[in-house]
């Protein structure tokens, strides 16, 4: 293979270059140092769901501009063109090792994964769907927090999604929350931390307040590793930190432990 079909991609962690094909075979985990690259929602779905089983839902919902915020519509259009997505959240129904599930993925490339009214609506609908059809719910969070350009309409989504998760939970549904880099702000303070089981990817930044805001408040630098997945794991807020290539197998095992009939313990695509 040559450079054109298989270019080098640099790791932001160790600054070493590896071939695209090597990155891909490790699900975009650096072949040298193990640092994860952020991945798109469609790619995430492709490595979690059984091939050919995916149906993407709620694609008609896109952001409004409730505050008539200057420049916002233009930025939304840019984000749409850049990512091919209409919103931060992609909601899908598909099979994980044979188990029909509802999977929601937040794409950090779209407005830094921030929660808009449309994003909250998609998430809520997907949770409600999972509840109605008694399907397990898996949410991969990645978010900078609230969508500032939508003001209170964005903040409201925290209550709306938390309400939906609570109802889903009271109806006996299984919700596996997977926290990926970065999960902060209003997403951390709503559905993302309400899972029955909480997993995280290695090294993911997870917190409510952003590190910069904390540093400004306390007037000193934060220690290395603060608010990382490993830190939260130590403090008892995460059940397991799971490398990307073991995620599907781990989720499969959790589904199996909750009585779902899984097809083996496959961790393949």
């Amino acid at each position, binding site marked *: 293979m040559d450079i054109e079909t298989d270019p080098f991609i640099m790791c932001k962690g160790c600054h070493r270059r590896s071939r695209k094909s090597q990155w891909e075979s490790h699900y975009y985990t650096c072949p040298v140092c193990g640092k994860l690259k952020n991945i798109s929602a469609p790619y995430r779905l492709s490595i979690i769901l059984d091939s050919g089983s995916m149906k993407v839902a709620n694609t008609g919902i896109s952001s409004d501009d409730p505050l008539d915020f200057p420049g916002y519509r233009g930025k939304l259009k840019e984000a749409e063109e850049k990512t091919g997505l209409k919103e931060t959240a992609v909601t899908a129904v598909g099979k994980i090792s044979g188990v029909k599930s509802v999977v929601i993925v937040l794409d950090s490339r779209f407005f830094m994964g921030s929660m808009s009214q449309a994003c909250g609506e998609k998430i809520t609908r997907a949770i409600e769907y999972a509840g109605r059809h008694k399907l397990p719910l898996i949410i991969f969070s990645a978010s900078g927090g609230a969508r500032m350009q939508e003001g209170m309409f964005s*903040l409201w989504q925290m*209550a709306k999604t938390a309400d939906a998760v609570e109802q889903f939970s009271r109806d006996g549904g299984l919700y596996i929350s997977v926290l990926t880099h970065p999960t902060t702000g209003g997403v*951390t*303070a709503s559905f993302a931390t309400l899972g029955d089981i909480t997993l995280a990817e290695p090294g993911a930044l997870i917190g*409510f*307040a952003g590190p910069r805001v904390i540093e400004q*408040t306390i007037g000193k630098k934060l220690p290395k590793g*603060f608010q990382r997945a490993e830190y939260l794991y130590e403090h008892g807020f995460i059940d397991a930190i799971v490398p990307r290539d073991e995620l599907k197998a781990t989720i499969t095992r959790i589904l199996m432990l909750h009585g779902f009939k899984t097809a083996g313990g496959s961790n393949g695509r």
Partner: protein
Amino acid sequence: MVDKILELVSKTDQQIAEAKQALTELNGDAVGQEYYDKQDELRHLEGLRSDLLEQCRDLEPEDHVYIARFSGRPHITDFIDALFTDFFEIRGDHLYDNDEAIYGGIALYHGMPVTVLGHRKGKNLEENMRCRFGMPSPEGYRKAMSMFSEAEKFNRPVITFIDTPGAYPGMEAEAHGQGEAIARSLAMMSHLKVPVISVVTGEGNSGGALALSVANRLLMLEYAVYSVLSPEGFCSILFKDTSRKKEACSLMHLTADDMYKDKMADEIIAEPAGGASSDPVSVYDALDKAIERNLKELVRMSPRELVADRHRKFRKI
């Protein structure tokens, strides 16, 4: 603009108090010229005060933010004293700590036992420090949650008062699960089987405010504000320029009027010119009437209806 006026008002208030004091002292003597002069001075000062307050009409959203944060504004302890009787404080999360930024307990409201709680900023520097200026830690939200579940157990309506710059952004708060504590409070409030009324009395910022305001009825004082983030934080994130606060305040739809038009606030409680601090008693009266009326409607609902009513309020946005 309003900041300078309110400063002058409080200076005038002080002079009025002094003049009144002087009059009381003079009253003991035979009434003479000095007494009449003082009376004139008092009349003049009172005229000046109302002229000043008259200037506080047609305010900009930025002025609302100033009034909402004004230190002379009534705080949760004032509202509890004015509207409730037999208040019994509930302290601590019974897990780790007592967060002073959230204050509450059980009290009687028109003879009915209720749970009342909210953010507490403190009224002087010493209290401000203890209460972290009303910025709660996870322990505060967990204390609130234990009050919510007790309220549900004993079928007490819940009334919350919202006034916070946001949840505390500190290392310990993060290590103790600030995000999860807020999330759990949202989830729990959304399903409470008792009536919930929230009153935004000052500033309601971010998830730290929302965590106590998943209510059947959201009331806002006329100059209270509610926003996704403090206008200063909003500026630094979106504009990378904190000098554009005035513009941010106008864009954010944060006034009570905006919140009502955007169908998130259910009712606005009128305030006197210059805000609640210029005549707190009139605000207590108006608020009391509004809470009583809303509560009367809510206590007639079944637990199931209450949860459904709250769900609709948040689901529609």
